[in-house]
C-alpha cells in the first residue's frame, strides 16, 4: 500500500463514504433546518431588541442589557445542557432539537442586538434631527433613515457572528440531535475510522462557504454611492 492509499483509507475510505453518505445527508438536512431557524429568529430578535433599546426607556433597557451581557458571556454548551437537563425537572419537556434552536437563537440574538445597537448609535444624531424635524415618528425615522445606514455597517460583523453561532449546531450532538456532527461521530465509533468525520467537515464547508458569499453580496447591496 502506498502512503497515499493509507492516507485515503484513514480519512476518505470509499466504501465508508458510500455506507455513511445517507446518514451524513440526513444530518445535513437537520443542521440546515436548525441553522436557518436560528438565523431567522436570532437576527429578528436581536434587531427587535436593538429597536426597543433605541426608544431609550431605562426600565425596558436594563433587562435588555442584562440579557445581552449574560448570553454573550455564557458558553452555549452550558446553556444547552442546563436547559435540556434542567427543564424536565420543572415538568417542562422540550425536544432536543428545539432546545438547540432556542438556545442558539438567544445567543445569536444577544450578539446581534449588540451589533445592531452599535450600528444605530454610529449614525450621526443630525440624521434623527432632520427626520424628526419633518414630522417623522421615531419608528419612521428609524426604518427609513437610521436603520438603512446602520445595517450597512452591521453586515460584516453580523455575517461573522451568524456563522460562528450557527456552527454551534454541532453542540446538538451532546443532547442527541441528529445533526451532521452527531451522524459523523456515531458513524466514526461504529466504523473506527475518521472518514465520516471528514465527510462531516466537508459538509460544514459546503454549507458555510455560500453563507460567507451571501454576506458579501448583501454588503454590496447595502452600499450606496460615495464621493
Amino acid at each position, binding site marked *: 500500500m502506498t502512503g497515499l492509499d493509507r492516507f485515503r483509507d484513514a480519512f476518505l475510505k470509499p466504501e465508508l463514504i458510500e455506507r455513511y453518505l445517507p446518514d451524513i445527508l440526513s444530518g445535513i438536512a437537520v443542521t440546515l433546518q436548525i441553522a436557518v431557524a436560528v438565523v431567522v429568529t436570532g437576527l429578528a430578535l436581536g434587531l427587535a431588541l436593538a429597536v426597543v433599546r433605541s426608544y431609550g426607556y431605562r426600565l425596558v433597557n436594563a433587562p435588555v442589557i442584562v440579557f445581552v451581557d449574560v448570553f454573550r458571556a455564557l458558553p452555549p454548551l452550558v446553556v444547552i445542557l442546563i436547559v435540556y437537563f434542567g427543564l424536565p425537572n420543572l415538568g417542562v419537556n422540550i425536544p432536543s432539537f428545539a432546545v438547540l434552536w432556542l438556545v442558539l437563537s438567544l445567543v445569536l440574538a444577544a450578539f446581534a442586538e449588540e451589533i445592531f445597537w452599535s450600528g444605530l448609535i454610529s449614525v450621526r444624531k*443630525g*440624521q434623527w434631527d432632520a427626520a424628526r424635524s419633518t*414630522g*417623522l415618528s421615531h419608528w*419612521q425615522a428609524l426604518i427609513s433613515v437610521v436603520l438603512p445606514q446602520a445595517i450597512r455597517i452591521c453586515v460584516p460583523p453580523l455575517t461573522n457572528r451568524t456563522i460562528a453561532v450557527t456552527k454551534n449546531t454541532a453542540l446538538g450532538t451532546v443532547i442527541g440531535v441528529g445533526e451532521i456532527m452527531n451522524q459523523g461521530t456515531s458513524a466514526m465509533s461504529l466504523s473506527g475510522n475518521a472518514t465520516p468525520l471528514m465527510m462531516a467537515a466537508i459538509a460544514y464547508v459546503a454549507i458555510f462557504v455560500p453563507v460567507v458569499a451571501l454576506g458579501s453580496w448583501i454588503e454590496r447591496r447595502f452600499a450606496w454611492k460615495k464621493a
Partner: protein
Amino acid sequence: MSSLLEVRGLRKSFGGTEILRGIDFSVAAQELVFVIGPSGSGKSTMLRCCNRLEEPTAGHVFVDGVDLMAPSTDINAMRRRIGMVFQAFNLYPHMTALGNVTLALRKVLGKPREEAEAIALAALDRVGLKEKAGNYPSELSGGQQQRVAIARALSLEPKIMLFDEPTSALDPELVGAVLGVMRDLKAAGMTMVVVSHEMRFARDAADRIVFMADGQIVEQGTPAEVFGNPQHPRAREFVAELSR
C-alpha cells in the same frame, strides 16, 4: 394671537446647568428675525426648543396659536409646519436629492409617489436644483446640499422656517446661493428665524435682530438699532468684534 411663533418663559437645563434662563420672544407672520450672540449662548438650543427637538425644562412655545407643550398636541403634525435647516445640512446620504425631499411627503403626509415627486421637484426647482434631483448628497457641493435641505423643509409647506447657522459650514463662494434662496423666501412672505452671523444679510433682510448672551435675550431691535447703537455691554462688545 397675531404672532406666528411665541416663546414664553423658556428654560432649558442640561444636567444641572441651566442653558436657557427664561426666554420670551415672538415672531410675527412674515417677519424675519435674526438671532445673534456669542458661541455657547444658547441660540441652537433655543431654536431646537421651538420644534421640541429639545425638550424645554419649563415654559411654553406656541406655533400658529398651538401650544407645543400641551399633551394633546400632535408634535409630529406640528413639526412639518415648522421647517428646520441645520448647519450640517443633515441630508440622508442613502437617498437622492429627490428621495430626501419626498420621504416626509410620503411618510408624514401619505402622498402617493407621483404626487410626492411632483411636489418635490417643484421644491427643488424653487432652490434652483431641479436638475440635481437624481444626485446623491455626496455628489453635491455643500451649498447645493443646503439648498436641497431647504427644499426638503419647504416641500411640507411650513408656516415658519428655523435656520441654525445655515451658511457657516460653507465655503465663502457657496454662501451667496443659499442666502439668495433665503432672500426669495422672505420675498415670498415666509416667516423665518435665522441664527447666523451673516451681517450683510442681516442688515438688508432682517426685520429684527435678537441678541442672546448666557441663555437670555439681552437686546433686540432693528438692524440699525442693534448694529448701529447697541445698548447692552455684551452686545456692544459683540458688535464691535464683528465689525472689525
